[in-house]
């Protein structure tokens, strides 16, 4: 069920953030490989809004494709063809796991809130640029138009039940671009598998890791039981302060591994902290989505 006020505020916030940026046009190099119409004219007949040419109808053409106005001026039926337009399909995956609902202090937004805001802002930019934006979810394939923003916002506002999220690329169309936003603190195997699959399908994209400052600094002391946000994982330590160094090592290792994965798959990897301004992160995302490999 969609939380309408949340969705509305999410969209409004995203619009506000996106207002400052120029429309994002996806990399033209991929246009040739996408078969989806967009506003980037392909100088060939296809599914588009702009007129391309009339051609005589062939028996394989459906009757409804015949342009009767043009056919009436001659004896043969003509078919009206429109110019192919290439649009980038961008698939967003925003981790909705409960781990993302963490904020170390009430002053900071949760990771999920920041991740959704960034993803939504990017979606606004993309849609303003005429791209097709969807979710990795099969229910919400990439589409264009402002209406898609409402659907995206509604879907993004939903919370998942899992402790840690895992991306799925099953619904990602080939040659699309993808943006995975998560804290990547869970198991990396699904991420690795997803990236591998995506690479196979020619999907390029960006990984954006969103972390809370506390997750970087690990400012804990004393005997502590750490629980995952869902409570499924628990770890008890007697001296949390002693673990700080090793935790940071592991986090660094996790980042390094993520970077390695991204490099292998030809993806970008970004890191964003919730105490940093979202604008900078969006700028980085904007450029990363434009960047050509």
């Amino acid at each position, binding site marked *: 069920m969609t939380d309408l006020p949340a969705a509305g505020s999410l969209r409004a916030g995203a619009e506000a953030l996106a207002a400052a940026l120029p429309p994002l046009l996806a990399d033209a190099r991929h246009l040739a490989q996408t078969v989806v119409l967009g506003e980037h004219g392909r100088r060939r007949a296809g599914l588009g809004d702009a007129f391309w040419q009339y051609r005589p109808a062939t028996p394989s053409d459906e009757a409804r494709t015949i342009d009767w106005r043009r056919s009436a001026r001659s004896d043969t039926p003509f078919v009206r063809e429109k110019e192919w337009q290439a649009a980038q399909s961008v698939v967003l995956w925003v981790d909705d796991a409960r781990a993302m609902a963490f904020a170390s202090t009430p002053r900071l937004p949760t990771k999920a809130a920041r991740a959704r805001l960034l993803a939504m802002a990017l979606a606004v930019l993309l849609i303003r640029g005429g791209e097709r934006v969807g979710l990795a979810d099969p229910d919400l394939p990439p589409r264009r138009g402002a209406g898609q923003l409402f659907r995206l916002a509604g879907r993004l506002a939903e919370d998942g039940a899992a402790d840690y999220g895992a991306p799925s690329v099953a619904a990602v169309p080939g040659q699309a671009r993808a943006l995975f936003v998560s804290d990547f603190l869970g198991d990396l195997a699904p991420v690795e598998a997803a990236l591998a699959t995506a690479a196979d399908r020619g999907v390029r994209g960006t990984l954006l890791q969103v972390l809370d400052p506390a997750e970087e600094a690990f400012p804990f002391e004393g005997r502590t039981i750490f629980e995952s946000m869902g409570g499924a994982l628990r770890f008890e330590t007697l001296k949390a302060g002693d673990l700080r160094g090793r*935790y940071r090592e592991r986090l660094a290792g996790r980042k390094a591994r993520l970077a390695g994965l991204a490099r292998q798959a030809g993806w970008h990897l970004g890191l964003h902290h919730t105490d940093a301004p979202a604008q900078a992160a969006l700028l980085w995302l904007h450029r990363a989505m434009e960047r050509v490999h």
Partner: protein
Amino acid sequence: MLVLGPVGFTAPALLLGLAVLPVLWFLLRAVPPAPVRRRFPGVALLLGLKDETAEADRTPWWLLLLRMAAAALLILGFAGPVLNPEPRAAAGGPLLVIADGTWADAADWPRRQERITALLDEAGRNGRPVAVVVLTDPPAGPLPFQAAGSWAERVAGLEPRPFAPDPDALAALSARLPETGFETVWLSDGLARDSRAPLLAALEAHGPVRVVESPRPVLALAPAAFREGAIALAVLRPAAGPEAGVTVSAHGLDPAGIARELARLGLVFAAGATTAEAALALPPELRNRILSFQIAGIRSAGAVSLTDDALRRRKVALIAGREDREGLDLLSPLHYLRNALAPVAELIDGPLEDVLHAAPDVIVLADVARLTEAEAATMLAWVERGGLLVRFAGPRLAASDVARTAENPLMPVRLREGGRTLGGAMSWGEPKRLRPFPDGSPFAGLPIPEDVQVAAQVLAQPDPSLAERTIASLADGTPLVTRRLAGQGQVVLFHVTANAEWSTLPLSGLFVQMLERLAVSTRPAAPAAEDLEGTVWVAEKRLDAFGRVGEAGQIAGVAGSALAGAIAAGAPSAAVPPGVYAAGDRRVALNVIGYGTVLAPAVWPAWIPVEGLAPAAERPLKGEVLAGALALLLLDILVALWISGRLGGPRATSAAVALAALLVATEARADDSAAIRATGQFALAHVLSGDPEVDRMAAAGLAGLTRRLFERTSVEPAEPIAVDIETDELAFFPFLYWPVTADQPLPSDAAYARLNHFLRTGGLILFDTRDADIAPSGGTTAAGRRLREIARPLDVPALEPVPTDHVLTRTFYLIQEFPGRFAGREVWVEAAAPDAERAEGMPFRNLNDGVTPVVIGGNDWAAAWALDPRGGPMVPVGRGLGGERQRELAVRFGVNLVMHVLTGNYKSDQVHVPALLERLGQ
């Protein structure tokens, strides 16, 4: 009860719990501190990590120690600790309480009384008969063993005496001890005394003896002595001790006759010394005023030393008639006088007229025959004011015709011409000896040395009064010294010269003693027995054991010998109590401490238990110990928070800030500035209801009305004032707007008193229930019910709905309805007098005077009046133009109301009727 040293336990069994502490130690060591639960997504990264140090899982040892201490305190606390437990095991049999009751007890006598009371209480609990004996005032009969209760009332009346117990009385007391055994508690004054041992032995024969002694050292002041031009002071202590300082002050009368401290001197006991000495040098004028010396801060007769003639230095003027003669000093008529008086008196030399200005006590005229008329008159006046004129005969006097034929007021007797010479080369007789001094003579009792001989003298005329004026005579009865009282003073004539020409008297010690008896000189130190022999001394001042100097009252005189004995022994007694004794012009002080008194600490046999005086009152320590345990546990909470890293978090900071704010927050009270503000200018006021929203609206409403009044009328109120009826003065305000809420607290009685006073003195309260009187079931609204409760104690008259001819309808605007945010329901005011009649042709009744004390309604006027800061209405009223009209009417009601408050029934005056009729007619 288990007693360990000074602490006992009422429930010692609980102390076994202390044995559990080691177990608790191990348990606490084994159980790590309670963990903090944290939700943390990064936990996935932590999985598999091991704690490096196993030590950290244990509580730090000092925290353990803290907790163990808390636990131990809990156990100790519940075991019922009692400080100074009184031994419950009581001995049976009678109890004898003995107090020395000397001056040395006086310093802490109240504590001794407390101790006696404690002993009596204990004996009373145990049903033991008690006798209390003060050794300085021993009972005459057998020991008065009585019930403890009957003694308890008498303890307050026990008093120490300013002398030591009489050894004879103590011996008698030992002899009177009963046959039966008894226990003795002896409250000793801590000073050694010979009379003590026999009594102690007698008491021990009857039962155990306990001794109670104050650990406080006894300090005593030795009598002051005049030595080498300064007053020598000495403070004594019984036992050598560490270095200690003590202050001695000199008290006396100032020139105005007021007793005050004249001087102060610090003395220091050297370590190991029992005497502290110092000299106090004072000018003679000041020195002669000293009445006593006291050790500052000690209430005891031993700390007071009364002074007598020994310190007093009389001013003696020596005047000779033959000063111009060149000759040997030994032949000077003043040589012997000067030598005799110099150590003990202040000598004044000079011409007679100058000397008199120096106010001498004594003037000695050695062989001065003639005085001028003026000199004689001045000197006579001086004598009659109390001066002592001592004249010595001599060749000049013998040759003169002074007091030959008539009595000279400056001569005690008439003299025969020429005098006589005895035992010289040209005479037959032997030089005469002195006859023993008669009783009644000031010289009575003085021994007469054998070698005093008189070779020449002047002779007195045998007058009828000669016998009574003669105070010393020669063996043949001829007067040697004559005296006449003149006014308050006296004139004394020695019928011999002041030098050794005529007699050997000036060469003898008798001469000095005679001068001393005449109070020409004063004795240098303790009076010897012979000094006082044959005189009777009357106590003038008495010294009690506490060192207070009082009037002696009617006490029989004391023989000089007894007084001398007491002074010599330094031992006053009941018969000769300490104080100042007077005989004639002479004063002798008998102090508790004599010239030779040495203080020594009391020594008790080793088997006698000696206790301190501290009243060992039982003091349960349970509360303190448990409070300590609680404090430790609270500390433990803080420490535990700190260890677990929770003390520094944002919540802790905010909690600390809140706590600090709570501590710092002080209620700012209105002072006079509020009153000045309220009275400086007319201001509308509203009663604080306690609901901030309602109060805000009331303030805004009155602000709006104030603004409207400013715009439309000549009433220009100041900013509205919020009034707390509990604390603020109401008399400053003519008008109160009181929004009533359903949960408003009822005013206090004091507030009601102020409100009623406010109403009676012409104030008006507008009660507004703000609910349009719309109740769910047609009854009374909640605010209405509250209003009734609030108004019940108020002095509110009978009410009626505002009649159409009420003055409120025409004080400024002509209105007939009184809407606020709600329009409707009636508004109630004080009912008109029932006999109000409407005159013919008049539109209004002739209503009563005065302002209605209350206006009651529920139209929420404040909301209708309220303006926001930009001047726009804060709350919508009605709809459209009709609503604006309603708001305007609400404002008009407010204006009318304020006008009514300020002008009273002015508009009710019939003078205005024509104008009003004209307006109404339009």
